[in-house]
């Protein structure tokens, strides 16, 4: 095969991998901080897309599209805090013997709720957001402007997340919580408040991803199902709760899908990820970079 074509496939695989990383970071974040898997993540992504669409068409116009991303983050952050306070919090206070079971059931139900609310309010239509940027070239690879902006946006969002987590007070408190929930309480930190912030940031990240990727994957009621699918694959491959792990896994998944569809068959594109995931879990039940789960 021609070397240039091969580099093009590798590059496009990496680009889609970066986009997947943005989809996965929300699940990883929430699980890392709260040990909860958020099955409704895709629905916050979907709502982020709707918010962006409404903002662009009604309020700020297509030239100021980048303002929509922090606004979507802020709105969904508040929603996340409310959900954490009234729906998810009870699982931490001993009302439930099996907190993972409670969280799975509640978040799957939230998924049904938001998805059908979106159909009621938005109808079964697919909305498209105007392009963010004209088409451009990335080395040998011609790339759509929207994907290019998604690339830059992802790098920015992950950079800000890194800065917040390592350098600011709440970020370091969150890191502490991810290490030891009880230990941090002895240091005088209100874990309940911190949980709300963690869940809010987590779902806010999903909404920001939805707003950023709105022109790439269109805005509709079930637009959350692809990020959920890719997100879970990545998070499990990389190891739950490990943010660097999920970024590496996302790049790997993008590469596997891109090269697999060239060398094997493009029909199976979506299947590669699942096969890879099940293989990884058989040999490493905690993912590539996951810590061994503590029993009991």
């Amino acid at each position, binding site marked *: 095969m021609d070397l240039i074509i091969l580099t093009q496939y590798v590059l496009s695989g990496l680009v889609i991998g970066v986009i997947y990383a943005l989809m996965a970071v929300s699940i990883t974040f929430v*699980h890392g901080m709260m040990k909860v*898997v958020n099955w409704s993540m895709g629905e916050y992504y979907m709502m982020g897309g709707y918010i962006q669409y409404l903002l662009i068409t009604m309020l700020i116009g297509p030239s100021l599209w980048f303002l929509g991303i922090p606004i979507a983050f802020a709105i969904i952050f508040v929603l996340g805090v409310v959900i954490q306070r*009234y*729906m998810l919090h*009870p699982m931490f206070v001993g009302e*439930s013997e*099996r907190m*993972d*079971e*409670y969280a*799975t*059931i*509640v978040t*799957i*139900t*939230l*998924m*049904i*709720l938001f*998805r*059908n*609310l979106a*159909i*009621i309010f938005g109808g079964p239509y697919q909305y498209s957001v105007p392009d963010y940027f004209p088409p451009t070239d990335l080395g040998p690879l011609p790339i759509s402007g929207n994907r290019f902006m998604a690339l830059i946006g992802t790098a920015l969002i992950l950079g800000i997340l890194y800065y917040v987590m390592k350098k600011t007070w709440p970020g370091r408190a969150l890191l502490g919580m991810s290490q030891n929930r009880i230990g941090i309480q002895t240091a005088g930190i209100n874990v309940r408040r911190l949980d709300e912030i963690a869940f809010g940031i987590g779902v806010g990240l999903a909404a920001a991803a939805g707003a950023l990727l709105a022109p790439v994957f269109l805005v509709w009621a079930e637009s959350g*199902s692809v990020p959920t*699918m890719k997100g*879970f*694959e990545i998070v*499990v491959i990389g190891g*739950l709760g490990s943010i660097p792990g999920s970024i590496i896994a996302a790049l790997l998944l993008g590469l596997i899908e891109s090269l697999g569809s060239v060398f094997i068959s493009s*029909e*199976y594109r*979506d*299947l590669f990820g*699942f*096969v890879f*995931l*099940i293989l990884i*879990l*058989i040999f490493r*039940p*905690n993912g590539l970079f996951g810590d061994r*789960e503590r*029993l*009991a």
Partner: protein
Amino acid sequence: MNKTRKQFFLTTVGLALVMALFPMWLGEFYLHVVTIGLFYVILAISWNLLAGYAGQLSLAHHAFAAVGGYASALLFLYGSEALGTPLPLWTTIIFGTIFAGLVGYGLGSVCLNMRRIYLAITTWAFAESFRLWVMSEYEITRGDLGLSTELLFDTSDPTPFFYVFLGATALCLWIVFEIIRSPAGFYLRALRDDEEAAQAMGVDTVRWKRFAFTASSAMAGFAGTLQAHYIGMLTPTPIKFNEMAIILVMVIAGGLRSFWGPAIGAMFIQVLAEALRDYAEYRMVLFAVMVLAIMRFYREGIFGMMRDGVAKLRSQPIRGST
């Protein structure tokens, strides 16, 4: 025969007798609704066996119904072609059931080391992979076009199908009852409550995990084969995650970990869903809010509510009887 078993048989036989009269009262449409309701009852009680009693929160149950259905339909299609005569449907139904059980055994073996979240995600990945496989191998499975299947009875009247489903549901209820009353039932619950402790007490956790997966998958596959030969069409749509969410809603609404709860919940949700058919999205919102309320305020579900109500009525002295 001890008291609980007597009670179980009386209730089941009584319910079955009452329901056997349904074709006299209900129109064809509602009989169809109740028949599909019975299909969901089998799925709900077998999922409750796996998730409620054994604590293995699998998200692939809807896929096992489809595995059974496709196995049976494909065996009929290609087996009849190879033999030159149509295979009797009961053989393909048995094959579909056993096949789903075997796939369940395989998935259970893969998931032996996985706990909680990893288990949920792996089973979910299995279901999605199966759906994608069905969609992409359209030369075998006919993909989105749908695989038309042989009907169990050559009629569009749901009455004979209804009796088959009624019998199948009673059979599955009996199997689940015997499992949870036997030592196996106690092992499964021990597995759920504390795997390490169960292991220390000498419970073969590997064996019983596999057993729970195999039994519940075989039951789901059985229901799936019957449904395939009732509807006459198999598509990848019921392997979507929404279907699993509906099973989950049914079991939670009825009451997870109770014997009758999931059955009641499945029938209740199915009939309510059909009654509200004109408000497609609103009814899903309603169900979601209902489940959230149950999870938040009253974990026992509809069955728990009924039981508490009966207990309250019993504890009150009957007026005027003194």
